[in-house]
């Protein structure tokens, strides 16, 4: 058995260097060269040059003038991108039903005249707790509330939602979706 240790130790060191140093360093070098923005977190620059967030990471919103994103289960506050987490609530857990009920009530209270059913993604927590998107249905549901809070025309807001709606990628992959953070950033520039 001892005679196997020498090649084992040397090969282990070689593979550690190849796959643990050379490979990640090579990927990092090429990534920083080819896709510097994506490789560093897809951060967005605002008008005056400072960062306004990542287009891939959602942020918490709860005032009526903003579109709200998916509920987030991260702690200690929602959309904590330093500690991603889902709720892990099971389908029969009473805590899940209570949470959904509370969210439905909050949405309805913020827009009492809206009697349509609430799109399910708007009242259920995302897997990462950082989901930047909501479904187009969830955006449509919130338009009347945002219109009232901002005193803007519904057409204008609907148009803005449409420009922030991504279709299925290449027309086939995944689902169509609305980026909540970029939509809200754009809302703030409307007058």
């Amino acid at each position, binding site marked *: 058995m001892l005679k196997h240790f020498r090649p084992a130790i040397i090969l282990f060191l070689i593979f550690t260097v190849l796959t643990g140093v050379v490979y990640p360093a090579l990927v990092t070098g090429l990534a920083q060269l080819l896709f510097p923005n994506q490789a560093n977190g897809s951060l967005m620059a605002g008008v005056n040059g400072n960062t306004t967030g990542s287009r891939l990471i959602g942020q918490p919103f709860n005032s009526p003038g903003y579109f709200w994103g998916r509920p987030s289960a991260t702690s200690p506050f929602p959309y904590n991108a330093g500690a991603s987490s889902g709720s892990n609530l099971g389908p029969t857990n009473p805590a899940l039903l209570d949470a959904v009920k509370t969210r439905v009530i909050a949405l309805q209270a913020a827009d009492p005249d809206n009697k349509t059913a609430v799109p399910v993604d708007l009242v259920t927590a995302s897997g990462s707790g950082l989901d930047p998107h909501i479904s187009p249905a969830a955006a449509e549901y919130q338009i009347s509330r945002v219109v009232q809070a901002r005193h803007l025309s519904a057409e204008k807001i609907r148009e803005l939602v449409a420009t922030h709606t991504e279709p299925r990628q290449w027309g086939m992959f*995944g689902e169509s979706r609305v980026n909540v953070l970029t939509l809200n950033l754009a809302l703030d520039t409307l007058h």
Partner: protein
Amino acid sequence: MTSNSFFQVGLYLFTLLALVKPLGWYMARVYEGEPVGLNRILLPLEALVYRLAGVDLKQEMRWTEYAITMLVFNLLGFLAVFALQSLQAYLPLNPQKLPAVSPDSSFNTAVSFITNTNWQAYSGEVTMSYLTQMLGLTVQNFVSAAAGMATLVALMRGFTRRKANIIGNFWVDMTRSTLYILMPLSLVLALVLVGQGVVQTFKPYQTVPLLEAVSYQQPKLCEDGVVLQDANGKPVMETVQANEQVIAVGPAASQVAIKQLGTNGGGFFNVNSSHPLENPTPLSNFLEMLAILLIPAALCYTFGVMVGDARQGWTVLAAMGLVLVALILVEVSAEQGGNPALATLGVDQSANEAQSGGNTEGKETRFGITNSALWAVVTTAASNGSVNAMHDSFSPIGGLVPMWLMQLGEVIFGGVGSGLYGMIMFAIVAVFVSGLMIGRTPEYLGKKIEAFEMKMAAITILIPPLMVLGGSAIAVMVEFGKAAVFNPGAHGFSEILYAFSSAGNNNGSAFGGLSANTPFYNAILGVAMLFSRYWLAVPVLAIAGSLAAKKTIPVGPGTLPTHTPLFVMLLIGTVLMVGALTFIPALALGPMVEQLHLLGVGSVKG
């Protein structure tokens, strides 16, 4: 299921199938030492590796030697990963100044990564330094996958050799798997993933302003850092405001690529591939999902080529594929069905062009129901275990399917190498059982199957259920086991059963509610992972040695053909029979009871 669901599932399966033959052919050439396109660059590197290590390329090993070298190599990996976690506070590339990982968690993680399981009791972005992720975890993602592939190749040689006592050189098989197969594929995939938005940087975590500040409650601390308590012993809460968001980043893409290709599955971040910086777009999702099954599927073709009859490989692939497709249909339907308990709350769960609907708790909007459910099946069919949605929040049937796929022994594709050698064990049992039925001596691929092979095959098939059921039984009997449960009722039992199904079959996915980062679970799940990896790999190598020593018998009138639709059915039957008979009682106590509760039979009580 919607028409788009069928389209996306169909596109996935078609693309996978189209890649089986080219990659399978390429891998066969690599293992047979024939020239492939990458030789020009890699051959000198390969030669240098052997020269440095003093390995003689031509010197082949007996099965015992092959097994010992594999075990020694894995032992070194364990020590390195354990040491890196314990010492990371003193080592470079730790921009967040993360402290040493606890000994029990380090043990569990080291075992988890050398066994190709990637069960993660820890949470990546708050536990592991960049150095530990790269030098410890990424390295093991490569070499544990390569070790599985090497073991498979040794088994294939067992079938093709006659009266031989050697089955190849472990160092050569492992080096070739890494250099020619895993590294080039990972490099390409990692770069494409970065293009989609997966991070790859050594910068510290990024801080960005929040557009709208958020206030939250947290326990108030005294000046000395102790939590302030009121008269009743409860912590005093204070309201604080967050104006900023800290975004965890790191060298993720390089690790994500190999975690998928090597059926490892360990996420860079806590929530694995549901994290937008680990799996940012539907396209990245498609590619990661493709990478999960790519090598396990293509190895079936490699197997056919190497045993000299491509039909044998297609037969095994057909058996795997049929089970996969059937369970995808069940899974997508179950999740698209939504949660009946929410129906009365004024929530719209229907699927239409404006929303994917269904059971969206724990799922990401960009993936929707179809890609979350498809991923869950694919990742548990393979022993990958990465997730893009939280399995704990799946519907009862939606949680049962992944759990059962693991319990089948990770042979429906399974791990790279390990899945196919597991399936070949079932094929050996299938020819034995049918040999008994038709009164002939069982043989497979020209080799007589005798008592020794049957004993070894029986061990490989029985060890995982022993780990799963024995481990779950212990956990539900002791306080340490029950205290970790998060969801009440039958679902709580499912959390425990899922954990042992995952560790006991080297998958690595979890019902994440279970607080598994405790000394009890770290130890018992670690032991389950060790047994399920090595008590399978070593008997498989024993069979390889035993088969190689036998003469090859020509196909006769009494030979049961093993390349026919009939044999596909026999193979599926054997796998499902063992899986069903062993696990239905346990599944009945978890997901099945929960499904009945959800349908309103009986009441849900904590």
